[in-house]
């Protein structure tokens, strides 16, 4: 609850001490631990192609998680991201059926994402509704529209050059998706940590009224963040659709909770006001490594969810348990 209070005495410590105690270094330890455990657990783990494949477990979710991180830092949330992804994917599928080429498909996917995000943004900022409720509604609405368009069918038959976005390799084992993920991580880190816009996001999350009185256009910033989340859902839709080569209305079901988990695991406070992009990047790797490692051990997908859930609660609970134990 009192994350801000915890940070004040930290400023009095040296930068080295501070970074060693930070959330990110704790997460890196977890990631390295899982990496080592994986390489002992399975002889197939340490293989460049395998590791490259493993990145597909998290790159698409992480792209959405970057924008979601900004949104959660500003004190809002978007539970409709997976539904936006499905609707964007459906729209691309419908366009592919009538012979639209790869550039057109990408444009359509991104445009649908932006439109859905703007719709959320209008409802939240103009009408002043709580985002968690609005996006529960639009989550059903957007996915419902995909069902209306597709029914129980699926779309296939995308143009061959469209496959590059989800299946192409830029250099040796480095996939296009991974490069996109890295570039987006850089852009989001720069925007959040080095620009006035990023500063405004933190200010709004810490004290929206205070931010308003200091001249930050709170509604406009929040609207932009919803559009960004929609856009990133569109980007993820392009990658996922291209990788799978097909669209179903049930595509990416349940991703919204995984993405929120990724963001929170990355050290972003769900109450708003604190968190970093590097944290989210490391959390993405942690979740990707866990699912990949357990997959190599033939652990079924749903059991991985126990590990992810326990990781989420454990990583957040352990520092608090530790401080309680030290005080006692």
């Amino acid at each position, binding site marked *: *609850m*009192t994350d801000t209070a915890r940070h004040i005495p930290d400023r009095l410590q040296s930068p080295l001490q501070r970074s060693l105690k930070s959330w990110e270094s704790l997460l890196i330890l977890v990631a390295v631990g899982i990496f080592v455990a994986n390489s002992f657990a399975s002889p197939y783990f340490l293989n460049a192609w395998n590791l490259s494949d493993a990145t597909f477990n998290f790159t698409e979710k992480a792209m959405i998680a970057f924008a979601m991180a900004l949104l959660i830092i500003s004190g809002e949330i978007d*539970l409709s991201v997976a539904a936006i992804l499905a609707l964007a994917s459906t729209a691309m599928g419908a366009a592919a059926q009538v012979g639209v080429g790869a550039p057109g498909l990408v444009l359509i996917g991104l445009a649908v994402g932006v439109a859905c995000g703007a719709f959320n943004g209008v*409802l939240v900022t103009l*009408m*002043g*509704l*709580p985002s*968690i*409720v*609005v996006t*529960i*509604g*639009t*989550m*059903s*609405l*957007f*996915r*419902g*529209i995909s*069902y*209306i368009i*597709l*029914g*129980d069918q699926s779309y296939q038959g995308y143009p061959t050059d469209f496959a590059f976005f989800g299946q192409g390799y830029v250099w040796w084992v480095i996939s296009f998706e991974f490069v996109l993920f890295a570039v987006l991580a850089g852009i989001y880190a720069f925007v959040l940590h080095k620009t006035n816009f990023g500063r405004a996001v933190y200010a709004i999350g810490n004290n929206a009224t205070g931010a308003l009185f200091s001249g930050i256009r709170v509604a406009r910033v929040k609207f932009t963040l919803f559009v960004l989340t929609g856009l990133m859902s569109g980007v993820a839709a392009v990658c996922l659709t291209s990788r799978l080569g097909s669209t179903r209305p049930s595509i990416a079901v*349940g991703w919204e*909770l995984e993405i*929120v*988990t990724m963001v*929170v695991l990355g050290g972003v*406070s*769900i*109450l708003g006001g604190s968190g970093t992009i590097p944290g989210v990047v490391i959390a993405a790797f942690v979740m990707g490594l866990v699912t990949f490692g357990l997959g190599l051990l033939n652990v*079924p997908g*749903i*059991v*991985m*969810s*126990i*590990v*992810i*859930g*326990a990781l*989420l*609660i454990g990583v*957040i*609970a352990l520092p*608090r*348990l530790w401080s*309680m134990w030290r005080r006692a």
Partner: protein
Amino acid sequence: MIRRFLFSREALLVGAILLLLALISTRFPAFTAPSNLASVFNDTSPLILLAIGQMIVILTKCIDLSVAANLALTGMVVAMTNLAFPGLPVVAILVLAIALGTVMGMFNGLLVWKLGIPPIVVTLGTLTIYRGIIFLISNGKWVNSHEMSPAFKAFPRAEWLGLPVMSWMAILAVVVFSVVMSRTTLGRAFYAAGGNPHAATYAGIDVGRTQFWAFTISGALAGLAGYLWVARYAVAYVDIAAGFELDVVAACVIGGVSIMGGIGTVGGALLGALFLGIIKNALPVVDISPFWQLAISGAAIIIAVILNAQANRAKGRIILKSAEHPA
């Protein structure tokens, strides 16, 4: 009293539900026959049970996303218990279901109370953990109708005064929690803890412990609903009620429960659940393609939320109404 009701959120919702029923009956008159309405109510009973628990949790400024997973895990455990000990009386099954649900709710509550982890994070975590455990104990297998004992399946369908027991359970919960929320110190503490946590603390209310009890109640109701659900539909599997947690939150919000805490009534949660239940039951019979249903319920949620926000700008529940308006 009557005047106050006429302008309340509940009256607005009753009006909306009546309008909805009138609209449906123009296309399908048999829908409003008493026997059909009773079956719609019966279908909505699990949603009502969970919505009451969720309302109490939301009142205290928390949220419980693990209710559907709790329901599913409890349902699987009682179904497997029934499989292993077919002779076990239904009362024992009922006690087991409520106890198990309560324990899971308490686990959420403890993490929120003692460790101060945000409720959305806790229940997001336990949601995935509880679902995963279902797979572990069942190995992904289903428990089917023919594997359950007749008594186990008969209980929620047994009729009493013309209504199935499942409906009576929902009615009982509505009555009990109406009293708890309006006539007990615990009920008042829920409103106080969510309405203004600092003031509540100064008034001697332990906000954390109040939140713990809210999660406990929510868990107990989810456990009860878990047995009823599995016995009624006579099947238990990993994905039972997947995504149902969002329906529950939606029912609360439609029923006028403020997501910021402190505002909401049992009657509101009941009406919100009925509103969603009627829409979901009516769409198939008025011949709307199943593929439209998700979009329509999504649109209904958004419209209800917008209307609610317009009707209730900057109004809170005032605990001491008589003190504000003497005489």
